[in-house]
């Protein structure tokens, strides 16, 4: 970082070496090109040095076992913006929006607002494909779905969803508050499921009732079998939720006439690596219940029941495409 920038001259030589190497590897170099390259290398010592350095770059990659190298270096990229943005709601909420919280009991509101960072006493996260259950004491329990991160403050009876999806159940104990980036949910006797999307959070009430306080707009009361999406600009419409369908809490991925693209997007949450599909198959329909403990099997079930072919370059790189355009 502290080194001075390379001179224009140096950059020019490196640029030329890279161009030469790409030409030679392309398979399209003529005998004349090779003679010109030799001339370039001979004409200046720095040219030859740059050429040797470029060969060293190749050698470094050649020393890596291809499968392990590809799986780790060709992994899906990080979302840097998201990483830097990720923060407790307390740091990103505009002051005006906080007024809405006054509709909650004052004590809860003050607790959330004034909670020192050090009081966030526990952090739990699950890996991709992992499902975890936690007892929070005094009748409360928490389930975490795949790729989920939460902060838990047992003393304040608060759980903060940082990323992913959770289900919070409270029975016969003091109420719990669930914090999300776009609002609060209070549960005194019931179970709620919250899922964080990139800019929204979906709240589903699975049992009992819950008080939902969006960041803007009035509070709502939701009962079992209802769901709502919260965003920065408040709550969407309250919609029904099918309580009978099996879901991740029991290790099942359910689909009711879902298009394949949406189904694969869901499935992809549970698998590390890349899962992609061709546009031709996106609109095919999927119905069924699938066990999440073996996602490879779900993929093979798809290829058995739909006109699709599942190509795996590695276990971490899966493409679903139509049978007719498979190469």
């Amino acid at each position, binding site marked *: 970082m502290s080194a001075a920038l390379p001179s224009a001259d140096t950059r020019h030589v490196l640029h030329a070496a890279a161009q030469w190497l790409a030409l030679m590897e392309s398979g399209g170099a003529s005998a004349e090109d090779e003679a010109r390259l030799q001339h370039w290398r001979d004409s200046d010592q720095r040219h030859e040095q740059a050429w040797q350095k*470029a060969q060293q770059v190749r050698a470094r990659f050649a020393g890596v076992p*291809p*499968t392990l190298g590809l799986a780790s270096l060709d992994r899906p990229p990080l979302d840097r913006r998201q990483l830097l943005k990720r923060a407790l709601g307390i*740091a990103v909420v505009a002051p005006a929006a906080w007024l809405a919280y006054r509709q909650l009991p004052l004590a809860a509101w003050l607790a959330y607002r004034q909670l020192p960072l050090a009081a966030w006493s526990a952090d739990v996260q699950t890996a991709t494909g992992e499902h975890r259950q936690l007892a929070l004491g005094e009748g409360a329990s928490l389930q975490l779905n795949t790729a989920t991160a939460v902060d838990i403050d047992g003393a304040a009876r608060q759980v903060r969803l940082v990323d992913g999806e959770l289900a919070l159940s409270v029975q016969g104990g003091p109420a719990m508050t669930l914090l999300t980036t776009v609002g609060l949910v209070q549960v005194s006797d019931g179970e709620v499921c919250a899922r964080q999307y990139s800019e929204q959070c979906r709240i589903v009430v699975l049992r009992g009732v819950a008080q939902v306080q969006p960041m803007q707009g009035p509070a709502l009361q939701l009962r079992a079998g209802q769901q709502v999406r919260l965003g920065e600009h408040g709550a969407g419409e309250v919609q029904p939720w099918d309580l009978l369908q099996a879901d991740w809490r029991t290790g099942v991925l359910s689909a009711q006439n879902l298009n394949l693209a949406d189904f694969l997007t869901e499935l992809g949450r549970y698998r590390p690596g890349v899962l992609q599909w061709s546009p031709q198959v996106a609109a095919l329909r999927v119905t069924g219940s699938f066990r999440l403990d073996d996602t490879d099997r779900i993929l093979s079930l798809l290829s058995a029941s739909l006109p699709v072919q599942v190509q795996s370059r590695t276990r*971490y790189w899966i493409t679903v495409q139509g049978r007719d355009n498979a190469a």
Partner: protein
Amino acid sequence: MSTTAAAPHSFHDLYRDHHSWLENWLRRRLDNRWDAADLSHDTFLRLHASEQPLSEPRAYLLTLGKRLLINFYQRRSLERAYLDALAALPEECAPSPEQRCMLLEALQALDALLDGLPKQVRRAFLWSQLEGLTYGQIAERLQVSDRTVKRYMAQAYEHCLLAEL
């Protein structure tokens, strides 16, 4: 009366005034406070080594801290992908613990070398270097022309050469 202006901030003052602020900032972006403490410590070490005169210490700390944070996440995501891939290998192909460690270090160095390349360029380059695909095969996979692949490869080589200076 002293003739030299007082140093605006001694390192000690900077540490005292901004350390817990930086650690909290990192803490909100990390999964546990030990990593945050480590990264905050590393950030101050960098600051100490850089000997920059600071008019805006927090802005500068934040820039350093962000860089280290992204670095940290990148190394961690590489390590996870690597461990997953190791776990998927048949037992007879699995490397020894020592080889695993060396390989991870080599991969981390290559990952840092490729850092900053556009996604598509990086992918084309890896396919060529690791899988030995021809430019024509890469062009087909990426649905671009052979010329574009050649341009990608030259771009990747140049990037690596510059990074190694």
